């Protein structure tokens, strides 16, 4: 399986979208010490092929931990996470990630950041250039190819990070509160763009956020998580049109669903605050 994967990657081919299956996953931080903290407790979740799935919950609910486990950044302690490529054991370009703090290589220009993953994927030089330019254009950074990240605004840095991740064409796109550090205006624009990109590329997206409206705007399905230990309390289908623009914010169904979800999240947040005392 892994040999087949390598062969495909070196020819510079796209990764096919894949569902994600999470079964009985628990995670404890500091497990080796006496005061270990149970961050995730018995998570079961099936994310469909091409689905936009949001993990929503108060801070400290373990939603980022779950994302990092899917990404293979931290080892799975209990349970199994698998994709169509088999069980997840390490990070790989079939599950690429965008972080809240962008994590661009600060010593590389925008273009070299985008080229980094393309080199690893084994694209030929000419195609590398072409693809890098296409994704830079797509996130509206044309003209900033040779800028260093420190010369860009937060929104531009995040768009560069998204271009870098999308360019390697991961089947699964992981996003860890990617718009959390942006101002409200930029955030809204980026949400709409992401939704369009997703609709056109049909990737599986797992998107972590604590913003209810963001989750409802973006997702096909939302998992609402409880805090300490993190459990999935509700999985909610978002029954809204596929094409979502600014106007959806006025849609009765959107508002109703947002309020419903807000109440569910609030329960968790209140419980978490009480639990902390």
């Amino acid at each position: 399986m892994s040999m087949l994967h390598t062969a495909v990657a070196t020819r510079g081919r796209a990764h096919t979208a894949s569902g994600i299956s999470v079964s009985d996953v628990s995670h404890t931080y500091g497990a080796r010490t006496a005061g270990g903290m149970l961050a995730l407790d018995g998570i079961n979740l099936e994310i469909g092929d091409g689905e936009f799935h949001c993990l929503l919950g108060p801070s400290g609910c373990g939603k980022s931990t779950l994302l990092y486990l899917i990404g293979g950044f931290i080892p799975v302690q209990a349970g199994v996470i698998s994709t169509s490529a088999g069980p997840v054991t390490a990070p790989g370009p079939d599950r690429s990630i965008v972080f809240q703090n962008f994590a661009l290589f600060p010593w590389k220009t925008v273009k070299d950041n985008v080229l980094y993953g393309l080199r690893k994927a084994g694209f030929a030089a000419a195609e590398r250039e072409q693809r890098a330019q296409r994704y830079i254009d797509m996130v509206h950074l044309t003209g900033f190819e040779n800028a260093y990240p420190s010369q860009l605004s937060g929104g531009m840095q995040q768009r560069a990070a998204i271009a870098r991740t999308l360019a390697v064409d991961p089947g699964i796109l992981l996003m860890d509160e990617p718009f959390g550090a942006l101002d409200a205006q930029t955030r809204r624009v980026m949400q709409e763009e992401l939704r369009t990109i997703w609709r056109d590329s049909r990737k599986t997206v797992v998107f972590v956020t604590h913003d209810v409206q963001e989750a409802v705007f973006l997702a096909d399905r939302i998992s609402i998580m409880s805090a300490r230990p993190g459990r999935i309390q509700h999985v909610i289908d978002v029954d809204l049109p596929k094409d979502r623009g600014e106007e959806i914010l006025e849609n009765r169904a959107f508002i109703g669903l947002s309020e419903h979800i807000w109440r569910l999240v609030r329960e968790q947040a209140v419980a978490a605050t009480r639990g902390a005392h």
Partner: protein
Amino acid sequence: MTDVLAGKPDRRRSGPSWSYTVVNTALRFSPLLLLALGWEFLGLSGLVSQQMLPGLGDIFSAFSAMLFGGDLLYNTARSISRAATGLGAAVVVGVAAGLLMASFRTVRLLINPIVQIFYPMPKSALIPVVMIWLGLGDSSKILLIFLGCLLPVVVGTYNGARGVNPFLLWSAASLGASRFEVLREVVLRAAMPDILNGCRTALAFSFILMVSSEFVIATDGVGFMISSLGDGGQYPAMFAAIFFVAGIGFAADRLYAMLSRRVLRWREA
């Protein structure tokens, strides 16, 4: 000063004006001028003997005699080749050791105590030791310079590598980089500011150890020259050699700082 004279049109156009640069440079070097004036005054006033503080004119003529007729350049070249060899080896070994320490717990546990014990030790204390081990040839001085320069490089690299934003490592891994590629392409690059700082300290140490080891164990080199001129009572020539080696050290440091800025220009943006 040379920058301006060499003419860098693009820089001059965007940068400060000619006169500003000249005034600024003059101001920056004015303390040196004051020092030189004080030196001359002390010598001429008779407060200090001319032996101890020879006039700057005497020093300068001793300098040109050594430069054109004597063996100053030969000795300098000998010294610098020793310093460069020791420093170069220390940079290669030190960067590798620092990266390994940062990446592997076992290596860290093995090397850390050694680093902590030897870091504060004055490396010139090892001069007799390396002489016993390797004799009077080049290798004893190179070993000493290597040992003295090693720790600042190790510590700089280790601190830099440990401080790398973990999200950069994860990003690289999720873009398809192997563990070794992450180390070489991300950790090494991200740690570069600290590595370059460690190497700058090491560069200064290499000059100090070069001269001080040549005082004790050498038959050539600038350090040997300074001590034998002093023993022979040729004080103007001795001071000339001291100033010359100080000037080279200064120039090396400026050059190094300039190259570092180039390498790290992504930070200044």
